[in-house]
């Protein structure tokens, strides 16, 4: 079975500072990994994904994430946070070894960027 853990319910960062939102995963095979963002009263929007290749992947709005196989992590990062980045962030995994076709999501992390 596949699973995702987001250990922080909330992350607070001052505007202009770097941010990190943590994610670890568990799968039996090789993972596809994703980050989605949800703004208030909206559906989820795709940010970025890791399928294969370079461990550092870049996505929308200046976000990036680093795949670390040994630590089974896929932390979301941004060098300089904006107030508009404040939202709910979900990490998700899909197990390529034949797990559920849908994505398994973490519980989400509220990111709050303070002016």
């Amino acid at each position, binding site marked *: 079975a596949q699973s995702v853990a987001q250990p922080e319910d909330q992350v607070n960062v001052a505007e202009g500072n770097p941010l990190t939102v943590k994610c670890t995963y568990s799968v039996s095979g090789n993972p*596809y990994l*994703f980050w*989605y963002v949800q703004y208030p*009263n*909206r*559906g*989820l*929007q*795709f940010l970025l*994904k890791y*399928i294969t290749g370079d461990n550092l992947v870049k996505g929308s709005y200046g976000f990036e994430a680093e795949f670390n196989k040994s630590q089974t992590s896929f932390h979301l990062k941004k060098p300089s946070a904006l107030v508009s980045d404040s939202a709910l962030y*979900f990490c998700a995994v*899909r197990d390529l070894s034949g797990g*559920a*076709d*849908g*994505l*398994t*999501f*973490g*519980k*989400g992390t509220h990111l709050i960027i303070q002016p």
Partner: protein
Amino acid sequence: GAGVSQSPSNKVTEKGKDVELRCDPISGHTALYWYRQSLGQGLEFLIYFQGNSAPDKSGLPSDRFSAERTGGSVSTLTIQRTQQEDSAVYLCASSLSSSGNTGELFFGEGSRLTVL
């Protein structure tokens, strides 16, 4: 429309009533998913449709929940004899065919269900 469309956006019902939630996926997307988002619980997978294949119902929490997809397009999620614990936001997502798909899902804005 260009995106996934869900209706109603908000539904308030009384305990014991049946409700139907509708999802209209992106044209050409053969895979359709229903998720439930409860406060503090993240996204819970409910059911998955892929083309004409039998749906994956493994996430449905009870037999009060059912879903169908007509003509490979619009889907309806039905909750019978609603309970207060059914209160949540129900999200629909679609994607291109699952086989070989890298898994990017396109979500609707959800249907917020409140059971009194």
